[in-house]
């Protein structure tokens, strides 16, 4: 309700354009009734109110309406009608063919102001405020239409506003092929819900989006968590967008590793693939110009990375303290800055970004607890990162590049992903598409790169889209470390079961890495060369059913 009031007052402020719209006070089957009503209103409003005969669904109707009005006269007449408690709807000068969805919301008008005389329409059967059925019947061309003159939508018009809500429920199981190194369960079941509420007004030029997420997990209390994925208001200008609030922003082009994607914190308990992100509070201005798109972001506040708990799988062999350390004295309240310019020229597209703020990847400080247990404390330094992402299409080849240089987290370092995707459409004599993906993931720090598993790795993958009714698709890939025998095999597939059910499976298999015993000395476990040791027992297959409402 508050929103609606807000939307109306905002809209009123912005409607300075001259109109020639009309107010309609009802339609009658009887010409006499219409005439009486028109005379009564003319006298009361001191404004010429006329009767217009119409033919609607082969019936004669008589519409009581004002003459075309300027915006000022329109507002004045509407105020008088409001205070008299007379209901009405607005007729658009060039959109008379679709009246049904452009009426004034009668709910707002239903209560007349206190003390205002309430006029009753002459005939209770012929309620004036009811909109006429659409005159744009099939096979019956619109009677009047001025193409190219824009439809000016009124501020109080519900046509200019829209709202919808949808939500989904995910039921997920994860089956691990062996017991965890620290005795964690082999089976994990969880349920998640994600809502999305949207409300727009002024033809969606102003809007609010709210999207909370919740997961409840059977095995890991840390994986039971909630997040506001999105909660932002938007304002859309002629060549700019402004979003204020928590939202998600993705940067990048490669498939197996999202190197330059830095705006949002990773929701690591959701998935190891770092594609799930926490909502990041921000003020985000996007400008579109002839020279490309400029995104300017003030990131107001910091989100800490989520980590699986002691009972969870896919975790490091140490307890991670909840209490993180920050380089910035402002800790989580520091405002970071991110900007990105992007442009395209035919088959080439490029983005260049700079980020200055608290690193989304924590460094870890090993601490020895009083019971001699080694624990890790996340440390978030302040970094500067400059990077590029680019893509070039040549025939059915796409060549991809992501690169960055980061300072502030250890010595300045550079990292890059280069790769290609080649797509074959209509393979196997069917409508199916197949994409062959090859990527090389490089980090100049080598094994010392504590914040990534990929520092000198080759990834090969295949993406199959059957393009069938069920939209069956699968992505199979292997990421192999060039230096050793460390492999990660990954599979993602999904298939629609009905219009509201989606089935998906996901598998990750780790092999070839150094496997350490649970009681291995801390220095071995902390050795960067053993980074994947903690994943070697965590091969799993995940099955999920998702229902959309």
């Amino acid at each position: 309700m508050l929103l609606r009031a807000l939307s109306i007052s905002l809209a009123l402020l912005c409607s300075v354009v001259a109109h020639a719209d009309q107010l309609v006070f009802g339609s009658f089957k009887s010409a006499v009734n219409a005439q009486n009503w028109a005379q009564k209103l003319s006298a009361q409003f001191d404004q010429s109110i006329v009767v217009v005969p119409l033919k609607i669904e082969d019936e004669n109707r008589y519409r009581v309406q004002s003459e075309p009005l300027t915006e000022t006269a329109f507002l004045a007449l509407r105020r008088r009608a409001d205070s008299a408690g007379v209901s009405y709807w607005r007729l658009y000068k060039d959109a008379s063919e679709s009246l049904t969805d452009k009426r004034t919301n009668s709910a707002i008008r239903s209560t007349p102001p206190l003390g205002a005389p309430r006029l009753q329409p002459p005939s209770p059967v012929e309620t004036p405020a009811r909109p006429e059925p659409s005159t744009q019947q099939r096979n019956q061309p619109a009677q009047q239409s001025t193409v190219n003159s824009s439809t000016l939508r009124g501020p109080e018009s519900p046509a200019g506003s829209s709202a919808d809500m949808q939500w989904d429920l995910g039921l997920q199981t994860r089956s691990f092929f062996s017991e965890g190194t620290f005795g964690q369960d082999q089976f994990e079941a969880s349920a998640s819900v994600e809502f999305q509420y949207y409300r727009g007004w002024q033809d969606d030029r102003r809007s609010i989006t709210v999207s909370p997420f919740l997961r409840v997990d059977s095995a890991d209390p840390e994986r039971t968590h909630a997040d506001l994925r999105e909660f932002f208001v938007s304002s859309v200008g002629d060549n700019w967008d402004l979003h204020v609030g928590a939202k998600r922003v993705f940067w990048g082009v490669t498939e197996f590793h999202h190197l330059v994607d830095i705006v949002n914190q990773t929701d690591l308990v959701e998935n190891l693939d770092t594609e799930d992100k926490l909502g990041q509070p921000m003020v985000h201005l996007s400008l579109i110009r002839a020279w490309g798109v400029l995104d300017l972001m003030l990131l107001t506040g910091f989100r800490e990375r989520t980590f699986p708990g002691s009972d969870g799988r896919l975790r490091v062999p140490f307890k991670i303290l909840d209490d993180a350390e920050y380089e910035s004295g402002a800790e989580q309240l520091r405002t970071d800055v991110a900007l990105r310019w992007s442009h395209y020229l035919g088959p080439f597209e490029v983005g260049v970004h700079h980020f200055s703020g608290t690193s989304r990847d924590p460094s870890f400080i090993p601490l020895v607890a009083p019971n001699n247990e080694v624990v890790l404390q996340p440390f978030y330094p302040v970094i500067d990162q400059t990077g590029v992402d680019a893509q070039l299409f040549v025939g059915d080849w796409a060549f991809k590049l992501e690169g960055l240089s980061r300072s502030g987290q250890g010595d300045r370092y550079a990292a890059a992903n280069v790769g290609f995707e080649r797509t074959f459409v209509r393979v196997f004599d069917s409508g199916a598409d197949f994409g062959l993906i090859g990527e090389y993931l490089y980090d100049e720090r080598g094994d010392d790169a504590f914040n990534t598993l990929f520092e000198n790795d080759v990834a090969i993958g295949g993406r199959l889209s059957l393009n069938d009714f069920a939209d069956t698709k699968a992505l199979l890939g292997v990421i192999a470390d060039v230096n050793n025998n460390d492999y990660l095999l990954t599979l993602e597939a999904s298939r629609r079961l009905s219009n509201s059910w989606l089935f998906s499976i996901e598998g990750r298999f780790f092999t070839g890495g150094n496997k350490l015993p649970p009681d291995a000395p801390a220095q071995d476990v902390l050795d960067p060369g053993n980074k994947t040791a903690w994943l070697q027992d965590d091969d799993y297959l995940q099955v999920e059913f998702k229902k959309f409402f």
Partner: protein
Amino acid sequence: MTGLLLVLTLPVTGATKTVDSLAAAQAKGLQIFTEADQRQSGYGDMEVALTMILRTAKGTETERKLNIRQMEMPDDGDRVLIEFESPADIRGTALLSHAHKTADDDQWLFLPALQRTKKVALKNRNGAFLGSEFTFEDLAVPELEKYDYLYLRDDVLDDMPVFVVQRIARSKYSGYSREVFWIDQEHFRPQQVEYFDAEDRQTKLLRFSDYQLHADRFWKAGHMSMSNLETGKSTDLIWHDYRFGIGFQSDRDFSIIALRRSR
């Protein structure tokens, strides 16, 4: 034997008079398409809802709902933004196309789950659109300049006098060797299109019906039906709620930042 002879002799007699008549047939083909194009031009902008009904050879059906916004550009090809509304799992996915008069079109897909915008490779335009019998190419707004035309003959379709005109895409990435349009002579509306593959086999047939006049000027088919002659599958497009003169602006409503607003 006479049949074979006839077949053999026809091209020979044809060849002697081709030089003039070929140029004339090409000019007439272009003229017909130009007229058809002009009758669809000047709409400014529009929005329309589309229901796709996908049907297997056995008759099993499934449905997709889309919302389409379109805008004319003064010196460029049309802008089109297609938003997917159902099935629910692809809701919010959107496809933005910038057609160009002579340069290759630009096309981007927005995937809401990752908030990711992906450019679509031109070569992949003959991939199936949403599992339907339509390809991305079939649904693009064609620019006159990108095809060669050849008028074939006058004919009659459903008691309607039509022109039969062949169209060949200049792009090497087209999925068809040629398309044969049946265009009615009264209003220059396509009534039927036959699609041919590289081996010159007819693979698909598109029929238009339920034409309605919108905004006093524009004939729009309310119903289009594409049949795959090889698989027996078909896709129906049902267009509804045409609205013209919305007041779109290209940067605001058809740019990459507009695409990112899809939900």
